[in-house]
């Protein structure tokens, strides 16, 4: 069996300032309850431009242009200390503008639910034609666009509008006149997830020179649910994304598990490759409109820009051992089980120390822990604290309790084995996976040997259980050694030798091979 390796990773952000008001739950609920509120009036003043979003250091870390640790050298608040020479194109992905994204939504629209205004579309087509991510054939699928009057009429009839500032440039209509699971709003949510997932998968393919048709299976692990009134949330985002991204050789399925889903998906992908079911498995997730501006009320109150202005997406490719890429250790997997309990200590032991104990490793044998990597600049003004730092403190405390480290060295352990949070608070996006790409880079450059990817999920929010959840897996340096793939066992050798001797004996007796 071949060891599964992380062959590549891609990370994308989509700046969607005009979706915050209508599709983010915080603003949408405020619109319903208190449409004239001060918060809603003040919010537009705090929305950032695309240029500011590109120059924002945590975003540069997310798309792979700087390593997360570099954030330690940039003075806070990061939204005031922008990286002036920043690029929207990253080593591992890109920051997509809203106009381009609307075109991507249209490209993901299989049933003609999306209409874009024709002049807007001409501009965007010209812009996209300059990018290598889209082929001419794909751009041709965008067709001619619609008259503004037609779009206005659809919006009056209940379609959800797509704005650039105050300008209406498109809309998304409902996919059924009575089905509550196919309303215009839900179609926006799902098409956004699909389109951002497509961009992530395309980036993975393009930036890693992977033949699109070589991917055999895709696991989609976002937070949305597609389906109709007879089968809500049945999927399959994965295959829908593969179709648009050109992964013609793939099928796939969706994995759900709140914020922990990407870590589950990573383990599942590694297992499928390890077992030899598929040679090449991608995991992919698009973003969630609901979480845009989720903490905007606190940000506006405290004079902080609305930092939740981007959708997040990512894709990771797990393949058979190439002898170079970091290996996913399927034999060292941590999991929070039903019986684990919910105390923070029990949770951390199940995810961190139990898997290490199994193979006799210490907490210090992991060079970097990737936990819930939320950008603290987003969560701290909302009173939710510095989430990654809280996780690192718990890991350090566990280490001190076990005697792996001295209590006095907890702060240095946190600095060395942790990193600042840099991921957008898009639910599933920050949980463990944002560091997979950077870990790959650091392991391959020799900066580190081993990283643990930890995903956690708050299942209780679904009201089906009070359980918490989480899983973890280790990525480590590839030794490059040939494995025992295809090798035969002792028993098989004995059988073969016995068979050969029998044949030889038969030959001696009969003068010919039997």
């Amino acid at each position, binding site marked *: 069996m071949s060891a599964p390796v992380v062959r590549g990773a891609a990370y994308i952000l989509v700046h969607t300032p005009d979706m915050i008001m209508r599709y983010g739950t915080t603003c949408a609920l405020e619109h319903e309850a208190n449409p004239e509120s001060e918060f809603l009036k003040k919010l537009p003043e705090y929305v950032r431009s695309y240029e500011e979003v590109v120059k924002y250091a945590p975003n540069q870390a997310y798309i792979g242009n700087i390593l997360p640790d570099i954030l330690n050298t940039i003075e806070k608040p990061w939204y005031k200390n922008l990286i002036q020479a920043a690029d929207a194109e990253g080593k591992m992905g890109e920051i997509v503008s809203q106009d381009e994204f609307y075109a991507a939504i249209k490209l993901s629209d299989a049933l003609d639910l999306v209409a874009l205004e024709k002049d807007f579309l001409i501009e965007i087509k010209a812009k996209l034609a300059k990018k290598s991510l889209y082929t001419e054939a794909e751009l041709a699928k965008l067709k001619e666009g619609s008259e503004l009057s037609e779009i206005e009429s659809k919006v009056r009839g209940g379609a959800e509008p797509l704005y650039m500032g105050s300008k209406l440039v498109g809309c998304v209509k409902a996919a059924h006149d009575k089905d509550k699971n196919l309303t215009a709003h839900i179609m926006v949510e799902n098409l956004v997830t699909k389109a951002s997932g497509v961009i992530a998968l395309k980036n993975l393919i393009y930036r890693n020179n992977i033949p699109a048709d070589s991917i055999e299976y895709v696991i989609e692990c976002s937070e949305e649910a597609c389906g109709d009134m007879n089968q809500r949330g049945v999927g399959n985002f994965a295959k829908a994304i593969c179709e648009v991204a050109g992964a013609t050789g793939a099928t796939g399925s969706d994995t759900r598990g709140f914020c922990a889903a990407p870590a589950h998906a990573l383990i599942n992908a590694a297992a499928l490759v390890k077992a030899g079911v598929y040679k090449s498995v991608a995991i992919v997730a698009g973003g969630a409109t609901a979480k845009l501006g989720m903490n905007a009320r606190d940000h506006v109150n405290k004079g902080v820009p609305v930092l939740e202005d981007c959708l997040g997406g990512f894709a990771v490719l797990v393949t058979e051992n190439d002898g170079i890429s970091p290996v996913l250790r399927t034999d060292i997997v941590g999991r929070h089980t039903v019986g684990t309990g919910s*105390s*923070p*200590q*029990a949770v951390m032991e199940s995810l961190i120390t139990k898997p290490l104990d199994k193979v006799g490793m210490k907490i210090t044998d992991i060079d970097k822990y990737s936990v819930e990597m939320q950008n603290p600049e987003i969560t701290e003004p909302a*009173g939710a*604290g510095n989430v990654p730092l809280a996780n690192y403190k*718990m890991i350090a*405390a566990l280490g001190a*309790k076990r005697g792996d480290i001295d209590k006095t060295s*907890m702060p240095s352990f946190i600095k060395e084995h942790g990193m600042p949070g840099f991921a957008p608070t898009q639910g599933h996006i920050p949980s463990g996976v944002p560091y997979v790409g950077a870990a790959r880079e650091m392991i391959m450059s020799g900066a580190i040997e081993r990283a643990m990817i930890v995903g956690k999920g708050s299942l209780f929010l679904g009201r089906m259980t009070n359980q918490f959840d989480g899983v973890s897996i280790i990525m480590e340096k590839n030794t490059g050694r040939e494995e025992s793939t295809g090798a035969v066992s002792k028993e098989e050798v004995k059988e073969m030798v016995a068979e050969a001797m029998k044949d030889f004996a038969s030959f001696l007796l009969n003068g010919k091979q039997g």
Partner: protein
Amino acid sequence: MDLENQKRVLDLSEKYGKENVVVIIGTSEAESAGLTAETVTAGDPTYAGPLAGVSLGLGVYHAFELKDQIDANVYDEQCGMMEMVLDVDAIIKEVSSIRDQYSQYKD
């Protein structure tokens, strides 16, 4: 304190009597521990939930304050790690201050 939990606290104190209910908090920040303690004693300071304007005056403690009452092994297993991580003194100071001001059932 979330609205569902406020309702549960209110229901339990009506069912068993306020003198027979003690609230034990496990929150990780002094500020949020104080707000929770205030909610079950003086009433919901955010005026959003069932305890808005309802001063139950319940006995309220953070789990860290009960260390001496708990089996040492159980405490170490459940709270030992968090005790090393959190600002225990600040949490206890905040909760005991609220309790001293508003709780009617302190012993």
